[in-house]
């Protein structure tokens, strides 16, 4: 990883999977088999699209659907799963399924408002901008978009299946271990992307 840092940005186009479910049982069955990109979409859509807004009280669409259908306890349990801790989407799927399967409501066939499983086709855009040292990194980072912040701090973990974001990985490689550690500890899933960006700027500028 030592060397240059290449800035990229993540963009999505949303696709329908045509899978629509109306009971918890159908939901669990669908969650078992949907494409991993569908899980990626539903856990990160809120942070990806609502990047400038206050985060709504449920951060993934599964939890929001459960809440809307009066499965309040289950909604809270599902929302408590922080996908940042599970860069492997298959592992994340297992964690969701475990919580759902342990819930007694899942056995019932109460008809709820429909849940539409969506997915994404991702496009990672290369800025053509590279940082060769810390100073250049800070300069380019400050001007990067929230889509870029999303790619390096979230999507990179999923692509690499590593628990580290790409900023921290590179900063460690140039000896900025403290800053790398602070960035990696940010509670990204509880913030919007502008707040994440601003927090990272603060960390980068600390002590300069």
């Amino acid at each position: 990883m030592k060397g240059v840092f290449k800035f990229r940005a993540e963009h999505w186009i949303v696709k329908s999977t045509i899978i629509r479910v109306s009971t918890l049982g159908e939901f669990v069955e669908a969650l078992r088999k949907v494409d991993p990109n569908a899980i990626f979409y539903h856990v990160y859509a809120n942070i990806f699209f609502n990047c400038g807004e206050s985060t709504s009280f449920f951060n993934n669409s599964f939890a929001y659907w459960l809440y809307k259908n009066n499965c309040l306890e289950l909604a809270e349990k599902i929302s408590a799963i922080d996908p940042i801790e599970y860069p492997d989407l298959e592992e994340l799927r297992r964690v969701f399924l475990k919580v759902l399967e342990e819930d007694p409501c899942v056995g019932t066939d109460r008809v709820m408002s429909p849940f539409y499983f969506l997915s994404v086709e991702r496009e990672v855009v290369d800025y053509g901008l590279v940082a060769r040292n810390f100073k250049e990194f800070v300069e380019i980072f400050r001007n990067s978009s929230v889509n870029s912040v999303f790619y390096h701090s979230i999507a990179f973990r999923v692509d690499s299946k590593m628990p580290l974001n790409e900023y921290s990985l590179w900063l460690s490689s140039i000896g900025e271990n403290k800053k790398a550690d602070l960035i990696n500890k940010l509670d990204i899933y509880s913030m919007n992307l502008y707040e994440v960006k601003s927090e990272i700027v603060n960390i980068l500028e600390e002590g300069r």
Partner: protein
Amino acid sequence: MLDNYVRFLDEMSLRELHLISRDLRGIRVLHVNSTSKGGGVAEILSSLVPLMNELGVRTDWKVIEGDNKFFNFTKKLHNLLHYPYPDSIESNEIVHYFKITYYNSSRIDTENYDVVFIHDPQPMGLIVKKVIGQKWIWRCHIDTSTPNPHAWRFIENFINAYDACVFHIPEFVHESIRIPTYIIPPSIDPLHPKNAELLESDVKAILEKFGLDLEKPIITQVSRFDKLKDPFGVVAAFKVVRKKYDCQLVLLGSCASDDPEGEVVYKELVSQTVDEKDIFVLNLPPDSHLEVNAVQRGSTVVVQKSIKEGFGLVVSEAMWKMKPVVGSNVGGIKEQILDGITGYLVNSVEGTAVRIRQLLSNPELIKTMGIRARERVRHRFLITRHLRDYLLMIKKLLFSSP
């Protein structure tokens, strides 16, 4: 021209648009719809087509022609797709649809394009002209969540021959679709005269021109005069609100020449409200962008109490002007309003009245919601996002292996 949008986004986001379109330079794209002006599709295309060209994607826009019989049928089809009225499609209507499609297929060149966007059902029969190597996309702007089965079967014959289709929201996607289906909400153009910034003095002058009292709160619904927009429900809600607040209601709309129902609804509305000095029913020409802009900006609360709604971009227009919107919990309205955050979603006349009262009683809440509403539109419903989505979709269709 694209640079003019930098004030709404940031430089890097605009740069990303250029980067996304880099591989598409020289690609030829055609949009086909049924009208060059009036209605949301034409409004979007008039902004989108020049922007695509600026990015190096050679884009044209063509409009089909048809006679009254053809457009009466497609209007009926539109209504049947929108709502499951008990009606069927006659053989002579289908034959005439094909006759006009055949006529348009000879006058509209589609062969010299890499990607062809067909908007809505009117031109969708042109798919017969598809040649090897081209990608054809059907772009649906209608709420097809509960279609009449005859109407759906009619368009289904065409849809699955396309390479992809696009709907505004997931619930409009029918389970019989077998082609890649994208979800792309429509958008507003912040530089369009309907949305561009106005001087406060201009807003006031227009409101005064309509006889509105600038000292009293204004509640507004902007929509076609159409029963599906429930203007009578808005009047009923207003009458409840007026018991507590000295306020005014504006119902601003127009009667399209191809919609005989509009005139009937307008007249009924006028006769019901003729003695109400605080209710203003404004029937304006369809291109009254400045007036719509000023009324939205001068409003205290905006309402969109539709019973059925394809998307309802007037909601985003008002949100962009920092207005909290009290909107029905239907179709695209619920995609735009975050309930309790950027406005309120309601399900009844009573609910509409309650939420308007809550807002009128709390100017600080109006302000906070208005700020959030504008932010939501900035990220989700501006033309630049729409442009990016189309570019990404074209790229995926042209260059991704199946």
